[in-house]
């Protein structure tokens, strides 16, 4: 009822309707919207996003922003090697990425001040500094709403799960969590979609007929309930999804061709990224892959060297190669980022702590310029240099830009307050070709 401010008049009632009708796919409201004034934008350079979240926050100083001239108590133990971008050396434990860096844009010196994981995650995922008054929707939820998919697949998937929350858009736009990670060489069954033993399609259909015959009482009583209307629509779609061979196929990495699957290592990171590529190929709009354990308060160097860097190195390069081989890279934006960098000073546990003053982000595909460096940090890597002013807001604005979504798009929140998608962000033009 309190929507009459500003030019975009959406009544609360209308908003609520959009809220419950739309799911992970195309709803009545979306149909109407697409038929109306809001055309799918021609300006989009990407149709899909694979967002690789390096959860915990990778140490920028030991990876893609090394500072050999740093003082002893800050300088890590790794050496630098040259990469395919001239003048941008990287860590010796990222050899594959070094040899492929000319396919990426590397953003350095992205800076913010949220020093705890949940707040920093939310900032990165929404482009808005967390504030208790408005729960902003994350990138994937906005895409699920603004660019709905029409078939039996979800539009927004997280592997295995993610803190990307739908905010005020509501659970209808939350990610479809796989909750599990494929194991190389084995069929992958995803929560909610795979059929348990003993459940054949004929049995499901028979059961469905019984449901249809028995589930009539409320329908007869109440012809005008938005809740019942929503339950009806979602039940229908859920049934289609569960019966869909195509949906099951999309999730089953076991069916991937030999030439693609051999690119990916047989570990969690590799298999998650393989699944991401496969899902995008089948039409999923936004896939977020959470690769954890980057929160190296303890034994930063040992963990990076033995596990995190080799897996990331192999995984991210395999992903870009696979998307290339599948001819998807042109229209798929790949982002790899943590939620913050790590302290220059090495702590007493040979670890580094949270450091939101600077971090890096890798981007590739989907209209992003190749072999491109944007932003810089000061000589010690303590923060951005004087000419770099990059914030998570800008990163989010740029991702929306690639998708052809105006980052100044305005929504009315569930409490009736207008909210601009990314009010403080500017598109980072240098990122794009």
């Amino acid at each position, binding site marked *: 009822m309190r929507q009459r401010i500003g030019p975009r008049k959406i009544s609360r009632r209308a908003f609520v309707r959009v809220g419950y009708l739309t799911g992970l796919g195309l709803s009545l409201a979306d149909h109407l919207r697409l038929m109306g004034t809001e055309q799918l934008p021609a300006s989009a350079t990407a149709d899909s996003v694979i967002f690789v979240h390096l959860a915990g926050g990778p140490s920028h100083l030991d990876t893609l922003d090394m500072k050999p001239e740093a003082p002893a108590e800050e300088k890590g133990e790794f050496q630098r090697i040259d990469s395919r971008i001239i003048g941008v050396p990287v860590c010796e434990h990222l050899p594959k990425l070094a040899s492929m860096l000319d396919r990426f844009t590397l953003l350095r010196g992205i800076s913010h001040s949220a020093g705890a994981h949940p707040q920093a995650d939310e900032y990165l995922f929404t482009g808005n500094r967390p504030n208790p008054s408005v729960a902003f929707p994350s990138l994937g939820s906005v895409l699920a709403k603004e660019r709905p998919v029409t078939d039996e697949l979800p539009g927004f998937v997280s592997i295995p799960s993610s803190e990307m929350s739908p905010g005020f858009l509501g659970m209808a736009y*939350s990610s479809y969590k796989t909750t599990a990670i494929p194991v190389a060489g084995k069929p992958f069954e995803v929560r909610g979609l795979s059929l*348990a033993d003993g459940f054949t399609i004929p049995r499901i259909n028979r059961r469905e007929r019984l449901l249809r015959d028995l589930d009539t009482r409320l329908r007869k009583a109440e012809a005008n309930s938005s809740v019942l209307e929503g339950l009806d629509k979602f039940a229908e779609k859920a049934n289609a999804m569960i019966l869909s061979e195509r949906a099951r196929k999309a999730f089953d990495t076991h069916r991937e061709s030999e030439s693609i699957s051999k690119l990916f290592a047989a570990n969690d990171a590799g298999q998650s990224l393989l699944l991401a590529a496969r899902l995008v190929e089948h039409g999923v709009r936004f896939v977020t892959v959470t690769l954890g354990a980057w929160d190296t308060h303890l034994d930063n160097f040992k963990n990076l060297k033995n596990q995190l860097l080799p897996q990331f190195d192999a995984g991210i390069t395999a992903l870009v190669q696979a998307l290339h081989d599948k001819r998807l890279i042109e229209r798929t934006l790949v982002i790899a980022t943590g939620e913050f960098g790590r302290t220059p000073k090495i702590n007493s546990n040979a670890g580094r702590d949270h450091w939101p003053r600077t971090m890096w982000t890798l981007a590739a595909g989907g209209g992003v310029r190749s072999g491109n460096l944007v932003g810089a940090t000061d000589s010690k890597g303590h923060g951005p240099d004087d000419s770099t002013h990059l914030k998570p807001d800008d990163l989010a604005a740029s991702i929306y830009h690639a998708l052809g979504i105006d980052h100044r798009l305005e929504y009315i929140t569930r409490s009736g307050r207008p909210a601009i998608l990314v009010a403080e962000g500017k598109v980072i033009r240098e990122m794009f070709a």
Partner: protein
Amino acid sequence: MAGSHLRVFRFALLFTSALSTATIATGDELHSMQRSFSQTANADLRSTVKPNFQRHIVPLFGRLGCNGRACHGSFQGQGGFRLSMFGFDFKEDHRSLLEAESARVSIEDPASSLILRKPTSSEDHEGGKRFAFDSWQYRVLKRWIETGAHEDSAQAGKLLRLEVLPNELLFTQAISSQQLQVIAHWDDGSREDVTCLSRFHSTDDGIVQVNDQGLVKSVGKGDAHVVVSYDAEVATIETLRPVSDVTLKDYPLVATPTEIDRLVAGKLRKLGIVPAEICNDDEFLRRASLDITGSLPVPDEVREFVFDQRADKRRLKIDELLNRPAFSVWWGTLFCDYTGLNAPLQLGNTDFAKPVGDQWTEWIERKLRDNVPYDKLVEGIVVATSRKPGQSYDDFAAEQSQFTRARNPVDFAAQDQMPHFWQRENIKDPEQKALAFAYSFLGVRLDCAQCHKHPFDRWTKRDFDQFAVCFERVRKGVSPESQFAYDEMVVELGVTRFTTAAERRGKYLRLAAEGKPAPWKEVFIGEPEKIKALDEIVPAKILGADEMNLCEDEDPRVKLMAWLRSKHNPYFSKAIVNRVWAQYFGRGIVNPPDDQNLGNPPSNSALLNYLSTGFIENQFDLKWLHRQIANSETYQRSCRTNSTNRLDERNFSRALVRRLPAEVVVDAILQSTAQSSKLPEFQTVMKNRRIGVQATADQRRTEFGLAVFGKPLRNTNCDCEREMLPSLLQSVYLRNDQDLLAALDRKDGWLSELASSFVGKLRTEDAGELIHQAYLRTLSRLPDEVELTRAMQYFEDCENRAEAMHDLMWVLINTQEFVTNH
């Protein structure tokens, strides 16, 4: 039209509720800017009028949209020119207007002022043409410049009230539009027609529309409100257009045994809405059990209740439900929603998040179980401090661990106070405290006023700032007088800056479990000296009430509490009464239930007043409130609609179908699939019940089913964080999730219990009994003949009986009836 609506009636003129009988009488004319400055007005008269910045100029900007969010009201301004959003920062707005070099206002050559040239499009204006050259708006602004363009808000006085005529609109087929008139009453006794300076909007465009001149048009049947804003005030008038012909004297006789029913029927009569019939006994039992205890009734209970012949069995059942442990556990969870308890996240600064969160939960549950008066309960939170007066830090640290020791702990929930609300990490600043306090205890959202004039309420940024100051002295952590003892204890425990957080927490929690002193954090009141300077600039003032001297008081929250429970408090009682009502009906009398503001009036103000006054008169007795609501026929109406109430959602003429809350759904699945011997435990053992589960740090850590059905993390000040709408993921969950299948197939489940008995051919009567059982367990009713036959046939068609039984339970859980309250 412009002329006719300028007639002003003395308020003595009575409007009968039916407009058709209202005749337009000519009264004395009030001063109006539009009239004074119109083309036909007397020029001499005009020369005596001096527009006032607050009374005329800023409202005119508001009316023209200049200070709107998309224009100069935006925080970035527009074209280098910024006005305060929705007005009310007079000094700043005036400074902007008269900024040297800006040429916005030229006193030497008024006609060259940009504020006249731009909106008339004499000069490029991105906002387009707002008024015509030499129109009344033009003349008012010009006249203001000619008379010196002063910031004379100090002379404006205070707006006492806004009167809107007529004060109620009853539309019919024949009468479908009406011009409103708005009269401002100022504290100097003056009155002015400010229709031309007011802003108007409708609360439901599908029922009534209003244009920017205040002309109201009825476009649909039903009721809505028109909201009028001028200066800081907001007024609303109700509009009605009957849904059917059966109104007033033609209205059928509807029994109204309770005051609630009488007040609800009072409005339905005017609207021509006939309420739904009273629901059946099984429907009542299921609904009341879900609403009061967050639980399904068990099969035996349904059978007993339906066959019970006592006339007052519903009343007796309500009393019984209110005395079950599930009542205080479930409502405790809701109260923890309202107060924003999220221990892992919001108490994350303290090493004691877990015990503190548990204490909070148990304390609220206990107070509800003991039916402690609501004002007492809130007082226990609001005025709580951790250390008792005169208690040393060491004694405090020792005492706290007595509550948490594993063996024979002292009962925290029996304490009068629970200070942890103030320990919330996300309300560290006084501003955040003010927002959370208003949300939790007043059901008011002040967020708008934190930055600008509230567009739908009277609150200005100044009001907010003054209110926020009231919380300046409320602190958490370690008080200065405790600091030394605290530091000493930490050092003694061997904690240094090299200790990791996990080690430290482990150490502290061990101490707490052993009952040994541990470095507990406290809630305390800060010294007044530090805020003296602030108090002089922004004196503390309770929202819409008295200023208070922050420095004089021992604890400023005591006055806040006195204000809360005062019977004149406009929000406190209404907020809780309305929230409880909303739980029973799926919709508040004010809706959304946590959004009381002038622009969001109650759908039935007499009803809200009755309940909130009664609640106060009954010493804030929560169970009185529950009984009043649950025993009314209004609550016990069916969801089966008739032609008059089919579309009604706000006047409680029928039961609305509501999706079950997350915790209730998961519990209902577990209960309906439990083995027979475990069923009674659902009414007595609360340990594993999801209705008592507290929020986790994030959705990943939340049980999957609870997250899917929208259990709130309690991160934001909004009841809407608890999601009540259906979604695709929910449907997938109910159909094919591993947790759902695991619940059906579990070893100690009903299906496993039955499987062992499925040997040989199932006799027809046995199959019938199983189907009855399945219905009672899931839908809390017996199947009708058609349903029974169809289910029997399914058994016949299925070779595998265990499979048939599994499918039947699956089907019942997937019906709309199961996942909703109806």
